[in-house]
């Protein structure tokens, strides 16, 4: 062991997180940075999975992607192709990428490029489509495909041209530190960060040489999308957590992700392996006319935000959305973040939270503390309808299953030669 104790190793792991310098550099077609996507391949969220085990909305996203890529002309064709195993499925996490909900990402979808300049690690995430009937929730009607095409042809290139004008790229830490003081926790609520992003990008959009019509469309799209920043946050967290994962010791969580069937976690001292357990179904609030009966089991890579220490871990930062965690109002949010602090080893002073007496966000989920206390990380999440194509029906919270941490602890005992 390189360190005297696990605690010491863990300090080194979180050092990588606090020392990170993520910058948003570019928006590019996914295939240009992820070679595995050249051909009939799709990225999906969570640990590796297969078609049969995907929940219906994730399958719906695959159908949508097949239509978008032009691999199939009709839904039935796409369905058949996918069932026959003609498409390769790749866990996004294995190719430095993350994707929200179904996480389905294909060759020609634009992705953000975030680089942690402290380690030169890069991470990618597709662009946020907005809310309602969207691909990530399993919708694939004409409106969805049209929007994906517009994002490929207009939005992606416009953002790329704009970002390239910013010397060194857009400094994400600065934006995030501001937005957390404005009431965002970056998973449920990204309004402030999205507004700050828009504020920063607009001058460069104007000088990017795109047509007035496109400029109008792009600014309108960004202005209407409260969650646009989520995907940037996810890529940021991925670039940071992948850097933390370069430490080969310790017991700190470096990834949290779910594929609608299994919840998977990765741990600093345990390399690249996933420790999985069946996902839970979210608890939450539903749009009119829907209930938990209609909900899809938990899915999405967006939990990388919680691994980083925001999202549900930073509930206290976002008074506007506290009622998702219960009816106790703000006090429930304080209790949630206080509880999350029990399983972390420090506070991240780069992200001070005013509503938490300026304590920094939670930093470094220690699997030992999770097993000891039985407190599992709380994830803020959107809720998809279990029938593909319906889209989002609510939002709420979900817990990481304890089983993931128990399995990881057994592996840690083995790694360190502890026999019981």
């Amino acid at each position, binding site marked *: 062991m390189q360190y005297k104790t696990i605690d010491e190793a863990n300090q080194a792991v979180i050092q990588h997180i606090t020392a990170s310098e993520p910058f948003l550099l570019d928006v590019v077609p996914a295939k240009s940075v992820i070679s595995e996507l050249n051909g009939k391949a799709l990225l999906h969220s969570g640990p590796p999975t297969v078609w049969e085990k995907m929940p219906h909305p994730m399958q719906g996203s695959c159908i949508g992607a097949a239509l978008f890529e032009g691999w199939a002309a009709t839904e039935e064709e796409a369905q058949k192709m996918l069932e026959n195993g003609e498409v390769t499925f790749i866990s996004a996490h294995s190719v430095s990428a993350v994707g929200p909900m179904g996480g389905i990402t294909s060759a020609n979808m634009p992705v953000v490029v975030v680089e942690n300049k402290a380690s030169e690690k890069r991470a990618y995430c597709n662009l946020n489509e907005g809310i309602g009937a969207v691909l990530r929730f399993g919708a694939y009607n004409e409106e969805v495909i049209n929007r994906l095409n517009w994002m490929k042809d207009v939005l992606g290139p416009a953002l790329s041209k704009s970002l390239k004008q910013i010397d060194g790229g857009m400094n994400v830490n600065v934006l995030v530190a501001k937005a957390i003081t404005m009431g965002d926790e970056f998973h449920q609520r990204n309004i402030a960060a999205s507004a700050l992003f828009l504020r920063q990008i607009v001058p460069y959009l104007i000088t990017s040489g795109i047509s007035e019509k496109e400029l109008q469309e792009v600014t309108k799209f960004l202005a209407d999308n409260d969650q646009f920043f989520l995907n940037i946050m996810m890529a940021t967290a991925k670039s940071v957590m992948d850097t933390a994962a370069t430490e080969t010791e310790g017991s700190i969580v470096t990834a949290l992700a779910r594929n609608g069937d299994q919840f998977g976690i990765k741990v600093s001292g345990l390399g690249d392996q996933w420790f999985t357990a069946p996902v839970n179904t979210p608890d939450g609030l539903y749009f009119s006319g829907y209930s938990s009966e209609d909900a899809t089991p938990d899915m999405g890579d967006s939990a990388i935000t919680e691994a980083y220490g925001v999202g549900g871990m930073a509930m206290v930062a976002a008074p506007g959305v506290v009622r998702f965690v219960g009816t106790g109002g703000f006090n429930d949010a304080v209790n949630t973040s206080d509880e999350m602090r029990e399983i972390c080893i420090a506070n991240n002073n780069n992200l001070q939270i005013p509503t938490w007496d300026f304590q920094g966000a939670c930093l470094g989920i220690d699997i030992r503390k999770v*097993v000891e206390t039985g407190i599992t990380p709380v994830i803020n999440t959107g809720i998809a309808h279990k029938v593909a194509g319906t889209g989002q029906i609510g939002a709420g919270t979900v817990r990481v299953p304890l089983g993931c941490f128990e399995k990881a602890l057994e592996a840690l005992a083995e790694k360190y030669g*502890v026999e019981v």
Partner: protein
Amino acid sequence: MLHTVIKKNLYQDSVSLMLLTNHLSAMDGVERISVMMGTPSNKDIMKGSGLYTDELEAASPNDLCVVAETEDVDRVIEELEDFLNNQSAASEATAYSTVRTWEMAENKLPSADLALISIAGEHAAAEANKALDRDLNVFLFSDNVSIEDELQLKQRAAEKGLMVMGPDCGTGILSGVPIAFANVIEKGNIGVVGASGTGIQEVTTIIGRNGGGVSHAIGTGGRDLALEIGALTTIQGLRVLDADPETDVIVYISKPPAPEVREKVVEVFKTLSKPVVSIFMGDKPKEQHDNVHYAWTLEDTALKALELAQTSNTSADSILADNEDLKKIKENKDQRFIKGYYCGGTLALEAAMILEDAFNLDPDAAHPEGMMLQHGEHEVIDLGDDAYTQGRAHPMIDPTFRVEKVKEAIANPKTAVLLLDNVIGYGAHDDMAGVFAPVIEKGKKEAAEQGRAFIAIASVTGTAQDPQVYQDQVDKLEAAGVIVTESNAQATKLAAAIIDSLEGEEAAETKAEKAEAADLTKASELISDKPRVINVGLTGFADTVQENGGQVVQYQWAPIAGGDKRLAAILEKLSKL
């Protein structure tokens, strides 16, 4: 049928809308309901779910729209109004933090000095050890802790200067804060150590109901007097209370101990500087010896403690805290006596009675020549006795003879305290204070020239309506440096307290040499101030501490790894890598 309610220009965010939907759809008689802002896409959703009415056509995106399938739309509207009016979430913050790990408990209350543990016995010793790791005193309410564990905990605590109260310790009071099962008792000057929870409660409540107060009550757990444990906590408790400035009288309550242990405890009693009232339940009380009084029932114990507590009045401490004269008197080892010269016979008798009790003297029924009390150089004389009034007017009228006695006493280097009464009213001397004030003032000056000092204490018996006017008399005496108290009893008690404090310190000094030098730093710190508690277990105990002005953090304890022994063992070993 479908009803539509539109609230114009009432924007609600999506969370509110969802909460409202939940709330309204749970109502009896509501079949289906949709609550949304009137945006075009929301209207589409309503169409999709079959909850669309023509009234929605006119709704704007800023209007709150409700479509309900119900027979009682008025009730829905009423609930809707209620909900909107009570939007502020019922956020009731508790006064203390709740945590789930020791680490966070310390984080939230870094100054903690006590762990109050009330979890299941099989886990209690392990957690108590974790508390000792963190230099916390332990109050172990849990029972079913083995005697081996108890011994290990108490020995380890003693090495660290900490105290372990319990196991199976049901009650305690620390600086007025009730711990576990305890009653709310006024703070006072009686300290209790007890190996019996209900015994402590009975004694402290009787003290409380009779106008007394308790400084601290330290429970030891019932087995502390077993041979194996050897009264470890009892002895710590006694020593801590002996050193505590708030405590004047120590009460000890226990069930019958092992004879050897009993002997050990009694030997400790003798080394204490304060009076002890002890009850070994079931033992016939022995004769009193040294500073130790034995009682037969809990009530006797409480009443005896009260009696002793009243003669050693803590208010004296505050009066004398920075008294320069007292410091001077202290230096002069022979100067330890009270001289009381009275013109009121019954007042003299009362003074004598109080002093006899304070100094544990046998009352003397015969009072030759008005000598109400004579013990060593202490004396209280009724100058109104026939022996002094032959050929002289009564001292209430003619102060001459009393002035002589006072001058003598002041000149006597053994006099520490001069005690006087001043009975005013019709027929009495028209300005007694005016006579004595200059005498005392002069006496103080002369004493100071000789490097001495004395303290004069007086009470005035009279009212504002009396011709001499009560307050005028008080003011004159005070101007001369006399301490004037509310009553003769108080004056006398203060005199006794002064002598006690002078002797007590010396006694303590000599006794301290006898006492084993035990480190009780952290246990003493615990009672020097209101306790700062990490409460491991029953939340009710945290509430009690909070309500009584102690600081507390609630440690919501659960077995490690949910009680999975294998995982707990892995965690243990990983932490020791």
